[in-house]
């Protein structure tokens, strides 16, 4: 029984509606369905939570205000006060990543952020946006980011090369971190759940032994919720750090 279901099955993409534009496969897949679902639910949540806008907030409003204050403080502390116009962007990014991570914790659902195609698209958006912003705000002065002050002239070409590669590695580390954490966590949950099934079919001793992976799975589920939040937090905070670099390249 256990052999028929691979722990990787949960990451398979199935087209729901076949579409193609100019020879490019643009089918509406289960991944797209869950992205639409996440965005829809988040929109519904924010609109319904702010509709009353009571002085003494209810549950939903208190939750949303907490998220708002959390991201507002993050943008202020990590990107600087002049980064305020980018708060909506960081907030949207954080809510989408957190929403998809938490949505993936529902058994039988699809984790959008466990695919590098999705996380790299988000990271590339941040990377291209921040680079353009740096050049628009600072012009050629943005290139100072690659040449730290106080470096001997002889070492400068090497340092610039290293800084350039370091800058290019940003979207890779940003996207790989999120995708690898979600992928590894969900595989781990499935593998231990598989142990429970295969041990349980071995009779009384097997059932007694199956308690261990089951208990571990309970603990891992809690850990996965922590990871879901932590990875969304890391994604948002790194976006703030990059925004800071684009606005103040001299530091």
């Amino acid at each position, binding site marked *: 029984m256990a052999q028929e279901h691979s722990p990787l099955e949960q990451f398979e993409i199935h087209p729901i509606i076949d579409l193609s534009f100019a020879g490019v496969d643009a089918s509406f897949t289960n991944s797209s369905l869950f992205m639409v679902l996440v965005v829809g639910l988040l929109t519904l949540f924010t609109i319904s939570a702010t509709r009353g806008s009571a002085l003494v907030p209810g549950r939903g409003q208190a939750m949303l205000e907490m998220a708002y204050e959390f991201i507002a*403080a993050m943008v202020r502390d990590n990107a600087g006060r002049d980064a305020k116009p980018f708060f909506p962007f960081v907030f949207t990014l954080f809510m989408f990543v957190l929403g998809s991570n938490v949505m993936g914790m529902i058994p039988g659902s699809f984790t959008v952020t466990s695919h590098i195609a999705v996380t790299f698209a988000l990271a590339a958006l941040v990377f291209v946006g921040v680079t353009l912003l740096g050049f628009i705000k600072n012009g050629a002065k943005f290139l100072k980011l690659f040449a730290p002050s106080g470096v001997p002239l002889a070492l400068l070409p090497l340092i610039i*090369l*290293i*800084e350039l*590669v*370091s800058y*290019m*590695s*940003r979207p*890779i*580390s940003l996207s*790989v*971190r999120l995708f*690898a954490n979600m992928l590894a966590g969900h595989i781990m949950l499935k593998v231990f759940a598989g142990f429970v099934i295969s041990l349980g079919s071995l009779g009384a001793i097997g059932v007694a032994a199956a308690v261990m992976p089951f208990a571990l799975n309970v603990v891992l589920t809690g850990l996965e919720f922590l990871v879901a939040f*932590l990875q969304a937090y*890391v994604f948002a905070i790194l976006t703030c*750090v990059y925004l800071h670099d684009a606005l103040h390249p001299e530091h």
Partner: protein
Amino acid sequence: MSDQQQDRDTDPDDRLDALGRRLHGLDRTARASQSAQREPAPMGRALQLGVDIAAGVGVGAFIGLMLDRLLATGPWLMIVFLFVGFAAGVRNVIRRASEFGVEDEAKNLDIGDEN
């Protein structure tokens, strides 16, 4: 004269300012205890650093391969850029680690202020 009457006599702006100061103080203590809880575990930090160094090496190797293909210079540029990528990865890690250091320092200062 009771306390309330005194409140009524003073300028509303002054009272608002005093309230603002008190709220600010409460906010700071709340945030100090919150940031202590929110701090990622040491293992989480270490894993993040691993991704940083791997990304540097990977990007370096990729740039080297592409340049090699463009200039037909054998494996040499890939080897050079592998080392440059490694250096960039180390640079990433140093930058991140120094951010951690600054965070810890800021927290210590904050707690010191409260006393």
